[in-house]
C-alpha cells in the first residue's frame, strides 16, 4: 500500500448472538486501491463489507473512512456507496430515476437542474445511455448490474463497495464486466473494495487481496505475493491450485531445506527466511500443478499415472506420488515430451521440480 489509508479497521469484531462472524480484524485500504475480500461463503467477507457500509455495527473496534471515525454512523452518513449482490434496484422507478435517487435525497447538494445531466453522464459511462426510460424489470442481468454501478457511482463515493457484483452473471458476461470494472476503476480513480468467492476474479482485478477464512484474515498481499508466497496451505490451495503432500522435514543443508517424501525420496527446497521446522517433524509440501515438468535429473517427484484429462490447450494429468494416499495433479503443455504409452494408467512417471517452486508449511492438526 503506497498511498494514505482511506479505510481503516482497528480491532473490529462482529458477533451475531453466540456466533462470531468476524474475529478481531485490523487492516487498511489505501486511496485508489482495488482491494478484494476473498474467501468461501461464511468466512466473514460480506460481514466485513457490511460493517464498512454501515449496514451492521461492529461488536467492538473502530472503523474509519477518509480520516473520520464512522464506527457508529448509519449508511447515509458515510462517504461510501454499495453495489449490492442482487442489485437491489427500485422496481417502481425507471432506470434514470434509480440512478438519480442518490442526488434527489434530502441533504443532497446537487442542484435539481444539474441532475438530468449527471444521470446521462453516468449512464453513458456504464454504456446504458438509451435505457433511462426503462423499468428494472425489463433489463437483462448485465444491464441491471450496470444500473447498480451507475446508481452507486453518481454519488461520487470515496470508496465503492461491491458485494459479489458478478456472481449472478453467466461466465461470458462476467468476463466482459471484469474488464468493465477494471476500466471504471482506472478512469474514476475511486477506491474499490470488492467481495468475491471467485479467486480468478480476485486475481484478475485486484491490487491487493485479503484472504479470509472462518471470520479471520489469513493473508493480505498482492496477487503475485499470494500466488508465489502463500503463508498457509489454505491460501496456497485457495489462490490457484496446489498439490499438498504430507512429508517429513529432515533439516537444512546449505541453502536448501531437505524433505523426505512419503516414498522415501528426498526433495530440496530453496530455503526462504524463517524456517523454524524441527528435524523429524511432519510437514506439508505444496507444489503447483504447472511447476511439475515431466523430466529426469535432480529433485524428482515420482509416482504412477492415474488418469489424464484433455483440456484443449493443456493436459491435466492425475498421478499418485509414491507412498502418498491422495492423488496429485500436473498441468502439462500439449505436445509435451510424453508419448501416449507414457500416459497409460499405471505407468511410472517422474517430474522435476525447481527447488524454488516447492512450498513448505507446518502441518496443523485438523
Amino acid at each position: 500500500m503506497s498511498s494514505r489509508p482511506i479505510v481503516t479497521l482497528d480491532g473490529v469484531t462482529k458477533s451475531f448472538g453466540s456466533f462470531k462472524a468476524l474475529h478481531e480484524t485490523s487492516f487498511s485500504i489505501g486511496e485508489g486501491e482495488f482491494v478484494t475480500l476473498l474467501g468461501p461463503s461464511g468466512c466473514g467477507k460480506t460481514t466485513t463489507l457490511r460493517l464498512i457500509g454501515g449496514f451492521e455495527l461492529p461488536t467492538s473496534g473502530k472503523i474509519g473512512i477518509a480520516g473520520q471515525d464512522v464506527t457508529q454512523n448509519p449508511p447515509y452518513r458515510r462517504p461510501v456507496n454499495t453495489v449490492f449482490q442482487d442489485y437491489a434496484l427500485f422496481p417502481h422507478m425507471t432506470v434514470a430515476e434509480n440512478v438519480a435517487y442518490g442526488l434527489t435525497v434530502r441533504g443532497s447538494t446537487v442542484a435539481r437542474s444539474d441532475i438530468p445531466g449527471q444521470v446521462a453522464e453516468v449512464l453513458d459511462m456504464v454504456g446504458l445511455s438509451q435505457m433511462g426510460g426503462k423499468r428494472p424489470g425489463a433489463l437483462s442481468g448485465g444491464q441491471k448490474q450496470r444500473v447498480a454501478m451507475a446508481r452507486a457511482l453518481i454519488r461520487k463515493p470515496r470508496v465503492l463497495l461491491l458485494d459479489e457484483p458478478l456472481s449472478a452473471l453467466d461466465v461470458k458476461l462476467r468476463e466482459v464486466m471484469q474488464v468493465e470494472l477494471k476500466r471504471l476503476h482506472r478512469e474514476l480513480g475511486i477506491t474499490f473494495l470488492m467481495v468475491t468467492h471467485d479467486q480468478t476474479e480476485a486475481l484478475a482485478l485486484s491490487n491487493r487481496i485479503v484472504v479470509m477464512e472462518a471470520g479471520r484474515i489469513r493473508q493480505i498481499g498482492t496477487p503475485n505475493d499470494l500466488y508465489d508466497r502463500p503463508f498457509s496451505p489454505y491460501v496456497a490451495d485457495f489462490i490457484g491450485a496446489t498439490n499438498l503432500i504430507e512429508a517429513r522435514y529432515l533439516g537444512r543443508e546449505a541453502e536448501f531445506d531437505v524433505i523426505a517424501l512419503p516414498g522415501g525420496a528426498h526433495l530440496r527446497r530453496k530455503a526462504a527466511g524463517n524456517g523454524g521446522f524441527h528435524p523429524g517433524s511432519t510437514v506439508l509440501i505444496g507444489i503447483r500443478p504447472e511447476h511439475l515438468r515431466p523430466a529426469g535429473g535432480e529433485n524428482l517427484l515420482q509416482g504412477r499415472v492415474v488418469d489424464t484429462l484433455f483440456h484443449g490447450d493443456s493436459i491435466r494429468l492425475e498421478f499418485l506420488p509414491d507412498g502418498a494416499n491422495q492423488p496429485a495433479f500436473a498441468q502439462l503443455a500439449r505436445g509435451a515430451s510424453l508419448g501416449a504409452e507414457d500416459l497409460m494408467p499405471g505407468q511410472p512417471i517422474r517430474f522435476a521440480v525447481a527447488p524454488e517452486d516447492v512450498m513448505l508449511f507446518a502441518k496443523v492438526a485438523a
Partner: protein
Amino acid sequence: MKQLLWWQKGMVGFVFGVLAFLYLPIVVLVVFSFNDSKVTSFPLAGFTWHWYQAVFANTQMLTALKNSLIVALCATGLTLTIGTLAALVLDRHEFPGKGLFRNAILLPLSLPGLVTGIAMLNFYKQIGIPQSLTAVVIGHATALLGVVVSQVMARLAKTDHRQLEASADLGAGPVETFFRITLPSIRPAILGAGLLSFTLSFDEIPVTYFLTGRDITLPIYIYSTLRRGITPEINAIGSMIVLVSLLLIILSVGLLRDRK
C-alpha cells in the same frame, strides 16, 4: 376449442347456475328500484324515478347514510394507520411474543360480531367510552386491524429488504426511505385492505348495534324499517350502493394494474 364431454358441460352449467343464484337477487333489486309500484313483487308495473326521489327526500335515511360513510371512512383511516405501522414493526423487528401477536391480531376477524360487540360494549363502559359513533369507529378499527396487518405483512414479506439498505446507502434517512421505497411497494396492499375494510365497516351490523348511541347507520336503519316490509325506497338506495361499489372496484383494479 375442444368439444366438452357431457359431464364437463354439466359442470360448466353448474358454475353458471351458482353465479346466477349469486347475482340474480341483485339484478332483481335494481329492477324493482325502478318499478312503479309500492309492492316488491312481479309483474312489473312500469318505469319510475320516484323511489330515488323518495330516498333523497328521506332525511332519516340520508342521516343514516351519512353516519355510515363517516364511520366507514374514519374506521378505515384509523385501522390503516395503526395496521400499517404494526405490520412494519412485525416485519422488521424480532421480539418475544411476536408469533402470538401476529395470530392474536387476526382473532377478532374470526369471532362472531355478536361476541365482539358485547365484549367491546362492556369494556368501553369500564374505561369510559360512551356509546356513540366514536365508539363504533374505535370498535370497527380494532376488529379490522387483522385485515390490514395480514395484507400489508404479506406484501412486506415479498419486498426485498436490500432495497431499504440501498436507499440508506444512497443517502436517504429512515423517514425518506419509508416514503420513497417502502410505501410505494406496499401501496397495493394498503389500497386493497382499505377497500375491504371500508366495505366491511360500511355494512357491519352487530358491533355497530351494540356500540352506537342514538345515531344509527344505514344497515341498522334498513334493518329496522324491514319490519314494515321491503319498500322500493330500500331497493333504490341498495341499487345506488351497488353502483358505487362497482365504481370503487373498477377504480381499485385500475390503480393496482398501473403498478408493475
